[in-house]
């Protein structure tokens, strides 16, 4: 991409820090983002699995919905149970369309006086337009464009966080708190996109560099780019919107059944409920998202056709690469429902070759989220 084109790209509040850290900046979802730092994708991946990594995810959209019944209204747009979500708890759900396709996946936090949500960078304008088009007059939608968002992830992440936010290491997985770090009012959420324990931290833009430098000064912490973010989430079996889930896939086809609770299954009332609930109740989804383990060493990339023994195309790889922690190639993709059983033999059409593979359980690397002792 030329320099002229780069000038139209947006920069996050941490841009100058990325440059100072030697980040290799690439266009991503309309932003110039660090794909890697001098440590390299493999080193950054391993560092996050062993210690703690700091990721800039400020390109993602942070939105607040204020007003009575914001939770009830949101349930008209998402299949997740938002009404029964307790205060300071977080839920993963998705905006669906009338056909049950996924418009975006997102995190919704019920706060004391409002709803806080984080949506994907590439979808945020469309998500906000979608919400505004459906927003009742008594609710207010506020875009938090003046805040950065970072993720601190890894087995030592919570211990690091607790040095700056006492008790952060005692927060349950998928819970939320408001804390002061370096005098900045931060929102911390015990969640992430790596399969590791850790927090996402929303920081006022003008304090973002100071907070990040403070975290990076801790001996366990390294800055991690988008390259390692992708290999980490793939090992954790987590979907990348626009690739593993799209408007052509429903939450059921995407194997995200778990994100739709019993009440929503019984009541419906979200876009595409008829199709989604039919797939859920009748098991009539024609394709399903599965994990894929190539038997050799060659990775199968996004777009690789999946074949049966007779060379019939039975699906497609939607994310694929090499799992540094797993120690071999891993992928996920969609196959016709009759091929979705774990252990099914499939083939991957990689560069005119037909590579053996098996349908596999995900995650490829065990998730290590923090569960508060009861």
């Amino acid at each position, binding site marked *: 991409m030329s320099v002229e084109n780069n000038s139209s790209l947006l920069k996050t509040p941490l841009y100058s820090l990325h440059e100072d850290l030697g980040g290799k900046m690439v266009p991503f979802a309309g932003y110039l983002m660090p794909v890697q730092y001098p440590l390299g*994708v493999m080193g950054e991946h391993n560092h996050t699995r062993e210690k703690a990594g700091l990721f800039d995810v400020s390109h993602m959209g942070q939105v607040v919905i204020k007003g009575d019944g914001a939770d009830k209204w949101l349930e008209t747009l998402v299949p997740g149970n938002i009404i029964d979500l307790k205060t300071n708890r977080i839920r993963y759900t998705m905006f669906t369309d009338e056909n049950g396709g996924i418009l975006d996946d997102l995190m919704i936090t019920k706060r004391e006086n409002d709803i806080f949500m984080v949506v994907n960078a590439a979808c945020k304008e469309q998500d906000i337009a979608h919400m505004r088009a459906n927003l009742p007059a008594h609710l207010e939608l506020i875009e938090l464009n003046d805040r950065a968002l970072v993720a601190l992830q890894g087995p030592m992440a919570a211990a690091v966080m607790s040095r700056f936010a006492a008790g952060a290491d005692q927060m349950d997985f998928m819970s939320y708190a408001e804390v002061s770090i370096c005098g900045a009012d931060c929102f911390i959420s015990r969640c992430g996109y790596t399969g590791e324990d850790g927090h996402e931290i929303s920081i006022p833009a003008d304090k973002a560099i100071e907070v990040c430098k403070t975290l990076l000064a801790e001996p366990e912490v390294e800055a991690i780019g988008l390259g390692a973010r992708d290999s980490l989430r793939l090992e954790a079996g987590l979907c990348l919107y626009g690739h593993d889930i799209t408007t052509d896939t429903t939450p059921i086809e995407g194997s995200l059944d778990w994100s739709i609770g019993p009440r929503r299954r019984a009541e419906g009332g979200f876009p595409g409920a008829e199709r989604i609930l039919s797939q859920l109740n009748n098991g009539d989804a024609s394709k399903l998202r599965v994990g894929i383990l190539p038997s050799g060493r060659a990775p199968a990339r996004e777009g690789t056709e999946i074949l049966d023994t007779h060379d019939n195309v039975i699906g497609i790889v939607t994310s694929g690469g090499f799992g540094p922690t797993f120690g071999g190639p891993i992928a996920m993709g969609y196959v016709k429902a009759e091929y979705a059983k774990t252990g099914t033999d499939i083939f991957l059409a990689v560069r005119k070759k037909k590579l053996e593979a098996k349908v596999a359980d995900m995650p490829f690397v065990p998730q290590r989220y923090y569960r508060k002792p009861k």
Partner: protein
Amino acid sequence: MTIYYSEDHEWIEVEGKSGTVGITDYAQNALGDIVFVELPEVGEDYAKGDEVAVVESVKAASEIYCPVGGEITAVNEELEDNAALVNTSPDADGWFFKIEIADESELESLMDAAGYKEFIAGLE
């Protein structure tokens, strides 16, 4: 024995009619951590500029082009189990394949070490 370099960042070490091919330090550095190399088969014929191998890093696949035409006479089987040799020793242990050069005049379009050094300096 002479080493030539292509604009696609392959090197070829030539001894008589036989060439040993690999990728340069500049190339391995740009590609990052290499996890898999798909090599050609011994006995296959390639023309200059043909896609002859594929290098996979954690994130992406990159094609390697044949710097001169000829028949593949050997491949570096060490790379099957240890593709990272391309990162750690691009110009020695991380070689890709040996080729019987069909037309030595094709070497004339390649660069020598000084020329390649100048070429990559111009890329930065």
